[in-house]
C-alpha cells in the first residue's frame, strides 16, 4: 500500500550540485522543501584518504564508476558506450567525489550556432549567469584568481588561489615559452579557512574524499543551512515515478524507501536534479497514457543529446623532482588556448586543458603501464616494473584534455529492457559514440599538449587514448530552449509539457562547452530557484 506523505511546496529529486543549491535557496525564502536522495550521508569517517590505503579506496568503495562501486544506492548503467558515465549516488551527488575544478563557461559557449554554425544557441546568455556565478562561487568557497582575459570579467573569487606547486610552475613555463594561454586554476577547495570549509592540506586525495573538509561538497556548503531553514532531506529514497493528476500536472513523486515501501510525496512543484542520466531515466520511467514515450517528452528529446566531455591525457615526465603526489587533485593551472573554433583546424569548437598531479605510486605506475602496454608483458612487468616508478613517480605532471562534444540525437540514455536496479526499476542504458569532430579535436589538442610538455622540459611523454570511463560530466538529455518542438524545458527550466515540473541538473545544457560544468549547473540552479521565489512572491501561478 502506498504511504501518503504530507504535501510540500516543492519536492526535489537529488541532493547534489543543483538540488542542494535549490533546496538551500528555496528553504531560506520560506518555501517548504522536501528533497529525496537515494543514497546516504558520507563524511571523513567513511574515507580512507588519511591512511596509506588511500589509493586502494579507488579500487572499489570510492571508484567513480557505479558499475564497479556497486553501492546499495547505485543503479546499473548498461550498454557499450565509447565513454561510460560516472557518478556518485548519495547526499551531495557527484560533488562527493569531484575534483572541485571550478570553471565558468566561455561567453561563446552560449552562441555556437550563431558563431560557428553548429548545434544550437542557448536561450540564455553569459550575462544571465554572471551574478549567480559569483554567488555560488562564494557559497562554495572557491579559491582562484579573477581577471582571466579569456573570460568575461567576474568578481574576484572569495579565496586566493591555491599555490600551483612545482607541477604548475613546470607546465606554466612551457606555456610561457610557447606564448600560449594559461591561468592559475580555480577550485572549490578552500585555500584558507572559509565558510564551512577548513584550509586545504594538499593531500591530493580529493576524489576519494577530503578528510579535512577542505573540498566543497553540498553536505558541508549547502545542506546545513538548508536543513536549518526547515528543508527536509530523506535519504535512502529512490524515486520511481512522477505521477500526474487529471489536469496533467505533476502530483509529486513516488519513491521507494530502503525497505521497499512505496511512498507518494505530494508537492505543488516537482524539481528534478538527479543528473542528466538519472533525470532522463526517471522521465522515461514516468510514461503514462498522456505521455507514452516518457514524461515531458513530446519533443522526443528526453534522454537524447547526451554529452560527456571525452577526455585524454598527456603526462609530461621531467628530470626535476616535482613532488607530483602532492595535491590538491583539482586543477593547478588551466589553458583555454585551444577552446575556441579556429578556421585553420579540421574541427569546430575546442578543448580545455588542466594540469593535475599524478597521485601516489599506484596511479603513476598505471599511467606508465597504460602508455607502454602495447610493448608487451616484459615492458611493464617483471624487472621492468620498477621503471615506471623510477621514471615517472614524483617527476611528472598531467595535462588533462576535455573536449567539447557536440549534441547528437543518437547519443542517449534509454531504459534497459532487461536489467533492473535493486528496486526492480529498469537500468539506464547508455548509447554514446565519440564523434569524428571530437576525435579530430582531441588528436589536435593531444599533439599540442605534447609540444607543451616538451616546452616544459619533459624528457618523455605518456599519451593515452580516449578514456573509456567518463569524468563525471553528463549533460544535455533534457535540453532547454524556447521551442517546445526542439527542447524539453524552457529557459527557466520548466518542462514545456508539464506546468509544475522543473529540471535543473546538467541535462538542461544545450551544448556542453569545454568547461567543467559544475559552476554552471549550480549557477543555473540558483537562477531558477530565484525565479520560483519571485513567482511565489508575486503569486504568479504557472498556468
Amino acid at each position, binding site marked *: 500500500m502506498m504511504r501518503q506523505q504530507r504535501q510540500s511546496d516543492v519536492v526535489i529529486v537529488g541532493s547534489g550540485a543543483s538540488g542542494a543549491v535549490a533546496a538551500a535557496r528555496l528553504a531560506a525564502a520560506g518555501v517548504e522543501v522536501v528533497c529525496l536522495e537515494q543514497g546516504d550521508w558520507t563524511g571523513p569517517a567513511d574515507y580512507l584518504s588519511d591512511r596509506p590505503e588511500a589509493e586502494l579506496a579507488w579500487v572499489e568503495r570510492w571508484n567513480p564508476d557505479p558499475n564497479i562501486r556497486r553501492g546499495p544506492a547505485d543503479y546499473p548503467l548498461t550498454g557499450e558506450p565509447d565513454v561510460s558515465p560516472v557518478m556518485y549516488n548519495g547526499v551531495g551527488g557527484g560533488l562527493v567525489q569531484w575534483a572541485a575544478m571550478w570553471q565558468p563557461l566561455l561567453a561563446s559557449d552560449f552562441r555556437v550556432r550563431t558563431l560557428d554554425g553548429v548545434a544550437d544557441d542557448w536561450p540564455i546568455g553569459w550575462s544571465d549567469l554572471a551574478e549567480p556565478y559569483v554567488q555560488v562561487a562564494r557559497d562554495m568557497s572557491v579559491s582562484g584568481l579573477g581577471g582571466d582575459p579569456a573570460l568575461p570579467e567576474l568578481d574576484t573569487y572569495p579565496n586566493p588561489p591555491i599555490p600551483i606547486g612545482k607541477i604548475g610552475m613546470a607546465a606554466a613555463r612551457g606555456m610561457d615559452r610557447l606564448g600560449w594561454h594559461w591561468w592559475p586554476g580555480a577550485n572549490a577547495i578552500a585555500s584558507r579557512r572559509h565558510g564551512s570549509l577548513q584550509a586545504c592540506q594538499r593531500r591530493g586525495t580529493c576524489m576519494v574524499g577530503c578528510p579535512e573538509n577542505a573540498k566543497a561538497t553540498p553536505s558541508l556548503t549547502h545542506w546545513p543551512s538548508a536543513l536549518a531553514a526547515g528543508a527536509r532531506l530523506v535519504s535512502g529514497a529512490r524515486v520511481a515515478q512522477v505521477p500526474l493528476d487529471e489536469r496533467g500536472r505533476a502530483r509529486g513523486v513516488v519513491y521507494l524507501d530502503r525497505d521497499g515501501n512505496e511512498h507518494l510525496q505530494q508537492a505543488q512543484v516537482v524539481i528534478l536534479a538527479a543528473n542528466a542520466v538519472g533525470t532522463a531515466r526517471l522521465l522515461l520511467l514516468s510514461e503514462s497514457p498522456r505521455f507514452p514515450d516518457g514524461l515531458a517528452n513530446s519533443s522526443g528529446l528526453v534522454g537524447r543529446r547526451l554529452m560527456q566531455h571525452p577526455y585524454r591525457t598527456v603526462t609530461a615526465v621531467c628530470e626535476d623532482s616535482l613532488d607530483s603526489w602532492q595535491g590538491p587533485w583539482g586543477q593547478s593551472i588551466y589553458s583555454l588556448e585551444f577552446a575556441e573554433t579556429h578556421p585553420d583546424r579540421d574541427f569546430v569548437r575546442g578543448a580545455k586543458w588542466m594540469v593535475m598531479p599524478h597521485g601516489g605510486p599506484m596511479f603513476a605506475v598505471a599511467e606508465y603501464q597504460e602508455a607502454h602496454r602495447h610493448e608487451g608483458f616484459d615492458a611493464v*612487468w617483471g624487472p621492468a616494473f620498477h621503471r615506471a616508478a*623510477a621514471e615517472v613517480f614524483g617527476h611528472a605532471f598531467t595535462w588533462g584534455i576535455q573536449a567539447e562534444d557536440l549534441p547528437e540525437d543518437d547519443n542517449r540514455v534509454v531504459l534497459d529492457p532487461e536489467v533492473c536496479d535493486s528496486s526492480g526499476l529498469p537500468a539506464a542504458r547508455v548509447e554514446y559514440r565519440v564523434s569524428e569532430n571530437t576525435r579530430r579535436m582531441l588528436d589536435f589538442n593531444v599533439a599540442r599538449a605534447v609540444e607543451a610538455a616538451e616546452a616544459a622540459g619533459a624528457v618523455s611523454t605518456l599519451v593515452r587514448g580516449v578514456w573509456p570511463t567518463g569524468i563525471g560530466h553528463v549533460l544535455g538529455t533534457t535540453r532547454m530552449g524556447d521551442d517546445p518542438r526542439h527542447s524539453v524545458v524552457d529557459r527557466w527550466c520548466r518542462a514545456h509539457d508539464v506546468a509544475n515540473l522543473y529540471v535543473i541538473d546538467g541535462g538542461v545544457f544545450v551544448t556542453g562547452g569545454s568547461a567543467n560544468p559544475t559552476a554552471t549547473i549550480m549557477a543555473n540552479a540558483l537562477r531558477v530557484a530565484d525565479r520560483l521565489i519571485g513567482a511565489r512572491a508575486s503569486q504568479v501561478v504557472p498556468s
Partner: protein
Amino acid sequence: MSDSGPTSAQRLTLAGLADILVAEGLGMPAASAVGVADRLLDRCLDAAPALAGPLMALLDEAPADGLAAFARRLAASRPDDFAVLSTTVVGAYYLSADVRELIGYPGQQPSPMSVAAEPEYVEMLERVYDRHPGYRECP
C-alpha cells in the same frame, strides 16, 4: 576482509605470481620479499574486499608448475582477471613502508600551505594578459 581470508597455500601461490609481476630490480625488492602475500595482502583486501573472492579463485586455478605462463595468459586474454591480480599485487606492494622509502614517497600526507606570499609566476601571468586578444564577443 571476510574471516575466510586466503589460505597458506593461496598465499604461497600469490607470492610466486607476485614475484613474476614485481621482480627484484633497479634496487627495488621483489614483491614477496616485502610481504605482499602476507600482512600487506590482508591490508589490501581490508581496503578493497571485493578483490578477495576473485583473487582466491584465481589462486586456486593457478598451476603450481606454470605460474609464469599463467600470469602471461591472464594478461593476454583475461584482462579483468589480470586486473584483480595486478591491482592486489601493486596495491599491496606500495603499502610497504620500505618500498615507499626507497621511492621517496612520504604518502598522501598533509602539507599546509601559505597563500600570503606573492606567487613566483606573476611575471609570466602578466605576459599572458598582455598577449591575449580577449574573449570572443558574442551577439
